[in-house]
């Protein structure tokens, strides 16, 4: 199921992400974080984590090293 989310992120990367190039203030970048979160936590929790990261990636935040939560044995 999480592959659906990963596919959506890739679709974004090759379309809109390429058309509006930007460098993310976080490491890993938001799209990479989303992929890792989806792999680790599944579609729903992973999407929620990715959405929360996007909200945090605003001009007021300071960015920095912010890895996705590790994968728990599923």
């Amino acid at each position, binding site marked *: 199921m999480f592959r659906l989310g990963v596919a959506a992120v890739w679709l974004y990367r090759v379309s809109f992400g390429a058309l509006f190039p930007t*460098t993310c*203030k976080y490491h890993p970048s938001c799209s990479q974080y989303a992929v890792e979160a989806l792999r680790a936590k599944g579609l729903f929790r992973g999407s929620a984590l990715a959405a929360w990261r*996007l909200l945090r*990636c605003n001009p007021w935040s*300071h960015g*920095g090293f912010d890895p996705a939560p590790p994968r728990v044995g599923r």
Partner: protein
Amino acid sequence: MSHLIALIASNPLTPLEHVARHILNWLHFSVGLSWAWSIVALTVMVRMLLVPLTVKQIHSMQNLQRYAPQMKEIQKKYKQDKKKQNEELMKFYRENQINPAASCLPMLVQLPVFLGLYYALKHFSREPAALHPGNLSFLHFIPSIADHTTSHWGGFVLLVVYVTSQMASTLFMATTVDKMQRYLFMFMPVVFVFVIAHFPAGLVLYWVTTNLWTVGQGLITRRLVPKTPAPGLEKKSSRTPPSDDSGGGGGNGAQRDPSQPKPEPQASVAPRKVRRKKQAGGRR
């Protein structure tokens, strides 16, 4: 209700299209703008809502530019290891309390508008003209904003304007100090113009408007915000004179001497010169 669910199931982006269409309808029927100018007005409205986000981003970017030499040094040092390079840059941002300019949110906020407009314009060309009475042309050189951009010579003019405006907006909003990346971002529109050529002209009009807004906003913000000397560098040089003296390699600090407070440098500059001579002659 079931009709709405069926619509969403057929295309999950339908609600976005409906919102875009409602706003366009309001601008056309109530405000009295033509369809093309309604798109321009919609873009301006979106960009006005985003002003707090983008202005903050421009300020951060100006701040970031002041640290460009140090950041380039880090990039050079960790050229081979991109991961380490990123980590070191993040560390540098944290140490100097820099807010990196680039953030995904302002760009992503525009995504739903863009998609909504795309589907709304697609329906414009499919639905009977009676549903969207009025002129679809723009400034007499685009016959219809719902047609493919390349279906008329005016579309090519619009594409040229798009490429130019996109390059100019990248110049103002490029949030990276890496020259190669900046060039890459600058020439992206030349590559993507072939994709964009298949979009409805109205969508390109949206893009051109948003780019021009970015350029205008960049120009105004740069004029309004006075260029102050790098606060980080000032802080650093005032904090680190002892290490400069002992290391003898504080090239950047020495270059910034004129901006430092007057009484202290006079005392510290003279001994530095003496020490350099000593080092050249023989190390203690």
